């Protein structure tokens, strides 16, 4: 096991109250595995990854929990110790490749900078390594593109540069926060393919954060579905798509227009919208939108319980082995 997140709670202290963006989530990432965290905006998927990187700023705060990486708790490390791990052993790529690259530096220099920070090698060697990284991520004529500024590159290229930078120090864990959301579908296919290649080549783990279930089905090995700061379902990717247990997962899957679908039926809709995080319903946060809501759902919060090697947070599966979903 590479990374273990235990009972993590990340809160944001706002004027009108405290928002639990991540509310007691636990998961593990194994070596060489692609774990996807999927959820809609505001579900806490990005905040949970920023918590791992130690990038939560005021008014945000990690209120409780542990993040165990290779036996040590990242939350107990000082800023300086954390900096050594960040960008070296754990690195991250972001959604918008334009805003995460510095526009006034050449892309090559930006990659070299992170190599020099973490590796004890000369500038010359670092440059060589940076060019090799650009080559690995599939940038044509890498030695020339080394001298480009970010604005001279297309969105797909910039995302490749971000990936080159992230893998330049041989990380064990790569966190990819919506890496393809800003890209076109044909470029998205390229980048997802690249991520899978990198995983196979360097045997690193990837924590893929996305809202797109299609991306999850294509890339991930295991999936965590988040809703309102909580994990509502965790399963192997095939099992999840074959037989989603939680009504929210089921609803999400049904509401996507499918290419194979020939009927002109209206799409399935999840009614209502995500509750305001300041005014959560007392029971299950999904109860107001759920088709199979019971009386109990409105009063009590269900636990995340294990069924046949997968986990689900719903009373429908309480003390029953199998329920027809």
């Amino acid at each position, binding site marked *: 096991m590479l990374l273990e997140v235990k009972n993590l709670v990340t809160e944001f202290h706002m004027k009108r109250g405290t928002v639990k963006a991540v509310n007691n989530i636990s998961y593990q990432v194994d070596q060489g595995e692609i774990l996807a965290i999927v959820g809609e905006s505001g579900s806490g998927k990005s905040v949970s990854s920023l918590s791992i990187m130690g990038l939560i700023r005021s008014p945000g705060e990690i209120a409780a929990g542990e993040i165990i990486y290779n036996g040590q708790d990242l939350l107990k490390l000082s800023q300086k110790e954390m900096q050594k791990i960040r960008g070296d052993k754990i690195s991250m790529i972001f959604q918008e490749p334009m805003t995460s690259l510095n526009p006034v530096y050449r892309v090559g220099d930006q990659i070299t900078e992170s190599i020099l920070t973490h590796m004890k090698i000369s500038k010359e060697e670092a440059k060589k390594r940076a060019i090799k990284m650009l080559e690995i991520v599939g940038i044509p004529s890498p030695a020339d593109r080394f001298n480009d500024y970010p604005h001279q590159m297309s969105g797909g290229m910039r995302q490749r540069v971000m990936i080159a930078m992230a893998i330049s120090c041989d990380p064990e864990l790569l966190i990819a926060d919506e890496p393809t959301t800003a890209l076109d*579908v044909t470029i998205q*296919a*390229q980048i997802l393919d690249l991520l899978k290649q990198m995983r196979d080549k360097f045997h690193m783990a990837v924590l893929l954060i996305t809202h797109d279930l*299609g991306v999850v*089905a294509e890339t991930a090995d295991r999936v965590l579905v988040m809703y309102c700061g909580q994990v509502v379902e965790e399963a192997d990717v095939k099992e999840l798509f074959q037989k989603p247990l939680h009504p929210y997962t089921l609803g*999400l*899957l049904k509401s996507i227009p499918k*290419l194979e679908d020939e009927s002109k039926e209206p799409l399935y809709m*999840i009614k209502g919208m995500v509750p305001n995080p300041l005014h959560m319903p007392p029971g299950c946060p999904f109860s107001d939108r759920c088709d199979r809501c019971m009386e109990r759902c409105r009063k009590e919060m269900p636990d995340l319980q294990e069924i046949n090697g997968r986990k689900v947070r719903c009373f429908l599966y309480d003390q029953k082995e199998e329920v027809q979903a």
Partner: protein
Amino acid sequence: MTDEVLIDVQHLYKRFVVDTNFFGRPTSVLKAVDDVSFQIHKGEAFGLVGESGCGKTTIGKMLVNLYTPSEGKIFFEGKELTAMKPKERREYCKDIQLIFQDPYASLNPRMTVGDIIAEPIRINHLLPDNEVENRVTYLLNCVGLANHMRNRYPHEFSGGQRQRVGIARALAVQPKLIVCDEPVSALDVSIQAQVLNLLDDLKDEFGLTYLFIAHGLNVVKHISDRVGVMYLGKLMEIAPKHELYANPLNPYTKALLSAIPSVNPETRRKRIILQGDVPSPIDPPAGCRFCSRCFEKVDGCDSVTPELRMVQPNHWVACHRFDDQNL
């Protein structure tokens, strides 16, 4: 859908001057839309798909008179919009309305939702003042918003609700054609379905015709009757949707379809992964626009631009591989 043609676009061009020399002459021109022709029938939903920069939004903006075409003709109900004087052209603006992509940027934050919806009615003097309120109530109801929400401001709404306001505003002037420019791409999955269903219902209820612009092929498939695929300012293929999805002819359409992640992990297909990026529309490749990335290239692709021709009933394609197949 009827056989009556509502909008007929003929050889439409739009060029943007990127750079000029000292004397103000253009030295660099971006061809956003390059010789595009298509028709939309009354009651039809025509989908236009393509990646960013392919000119799909530019076409939409030319139809609603936000851009003036550089060349070419647009006919609306048989009348040539492009030949009209500006004042006359404006008369037709209320027949063709636009729903924008970003519901956060397209509503005035200082106006209440009621005023936003009432504004086009007042500007066009469509109703006497005392009836406007009732009309707004009716429109709010049509798009699934409660009447008491009319006094709220856009920031009090979620993305999906704002998009509903945008739709109500477009409906306010009783248009015949609505250009939907990526209406759901800024929304969450669970909300997307709500807005798509709403658009579908309204189409039947008001007898609307849609030009539905999107980059997501699966979204377009759900709502459209016919689909056009664009690449770098050119139409590559037009076909009825079932035909297009079951039997894509142009290699670009094939690649685009193949690139969509499927929600079934069992069918992790061998996908066609295109090499390289979309070339710049300022300096597009000679011949077929797609030839630099095409995986089914034949002789002549990089020198002669293929024309859009009908190769099967109602199935139009621009590709040299179908040159001898004329219907």
